[in-house]
């Protein structure tokens, strides 16, 4: 959104960048080798549904695409609505690349139908050796990744986040502004 748009108060949802997501496929190998972070073989994509029949139709079409594609890749998936009114498509597949390609399919499907702005993020959970869960979050608005390591009591494991970030700097397009490392508490993943 341009400066003029904001001065005239014409809010638009920023468009989404979907291409960057593939970087996580190769980064996952490094993560396992250098950080001993293992993928939980799951991933999720989250979007904000819009109350309109156009959106409902787009969503149905994308779901049909996903049904076909997931049969192809042997990926299981389910669709849930979270407490904040966002829709999550949760995928499970032992093959990490299939997870990524199905998530790309959903995101690109929404973008092609004009609803790219509704995309919030994609989530890839990993587990460290001491059983801590850390998420790599793909931010569709910026087309880059940031880490999110929740601790009990709505605290973030900042040390772990910054450590993984410094190791992954060369592998992943990273969000440089940590004010945009939006947490995702209580995600269904």
């Amino acid at each position, binding site marked *: *959104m341009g400066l003029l748009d*904001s*001065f*005239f*108060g*014409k*809010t*638009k*949802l*920023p468009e989404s960048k979907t291409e960057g997501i593939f970087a996580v496929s190769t980064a996952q190998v490094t993560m396992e080798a250098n950080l001993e972070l293992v993928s939980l073989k799951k991933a999720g994509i989250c979007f*904000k*549904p*819009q*109350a*309109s*029949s*156009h*959106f409902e139709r787009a969503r149905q079409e994308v779901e049909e695409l996903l049904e076909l594609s997931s049969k192809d890749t042997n990926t299981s998936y389910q669709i849930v609505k979270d*407490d*904040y*009114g*966002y829709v999550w498509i949760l995928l499970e597949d032992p093959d990490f690349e299939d997870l990524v390609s199905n998530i790309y399919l959903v995101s690109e499907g929404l973008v092609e139908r004009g609803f790219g*702005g*509704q995309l*919030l*993020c994609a989530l890839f959970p990993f587990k460290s050796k001491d059983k801590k869960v850390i998420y790599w979050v793909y*931010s569709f*608005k*910026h087309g880059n990744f940031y880490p999110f390591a929740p601790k009990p*009591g*709505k*605290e973030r494991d900042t040390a772990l986040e910054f450590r993984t970030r410094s190791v992954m700097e060369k592998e992943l397009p990273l969000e440089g*502004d940590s*004010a*945009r490392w*939006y*947490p*995702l*508490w*209580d995600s269904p993943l």
Partner: protein
Amino acid sequence: MFLTMFLLAMVYLAFIAFLLTQGVGTVGIVAFAGFFLFVQYFFSDRLVLWSMGGRVVSESEEPELHGIVDRLSQLADLPKPRIAVVKSSVPNAFATGRSKNNAVVAVTTGIMRQLDRSELEAVLAHELSHVKNRDVLVITIASFLSTVAFFLVRNLLFFGMMGRDRRESGGMVVVWIVSVLVWLVSLLLIRALSRYREFSADRGAAVITGQPAHLASALMKISGAMDRVPKDDLRKVEGMNAFFIVPAVSGDTLMSLFSTHPRVEQRISRLEEMQRRMEF
């Protein structure tokens, strides 16, 4: 509120007049006004929070508010603002802060009690739209321009009078009256601008949440509730109206020209219009 504003402006004018008699020039006075507005702009987050009694809350204190704002800021591509809560039974919300990086979004405990989660989300999206639209900056610039206009007119008149007529007391009264008129006009313009920004923020909330109906139902609930809240509480918050989601004085008691906010019915009908357009 109008009376308060009027009296405030009178005091302000008297102070300026005092400065003038002390031999401070126009440039000095505009600089002085600019300085005050700059301070107001630069410290808006702290000033507004302090005057409202708002307290910034952490994620563990208000997980629901944070959860909603985290997601909305990511959708709208804004850095996450601080979140504050005001202990007040008046259902309201406001946003302040000079820039996206200094923004604070605040809600009262009253609004949290009365709205359900989706309505609260719509209200927060409205406030985030104010942040996104840089409304604190826009209103500050407008106020500064109106101050400058005011002095230009005042001085032109003042010197005109001095040249033509030496009877100072009569001249001063005219200058004073015209000053007040200019001030009135600029007030009306700023109010009109403020109403336009409100509509924009409503529109923004509808776009961000994708659900115009949620904001409409929140507005309906709040404005309905406004009438039932004791007046004492209302008077306390009157000064902050420009930052509120629904002004604390109901639209019918004031001339709509002077109102910072459009009437709730008008806002709701625009939201319904948006909902209709989304279907085509």
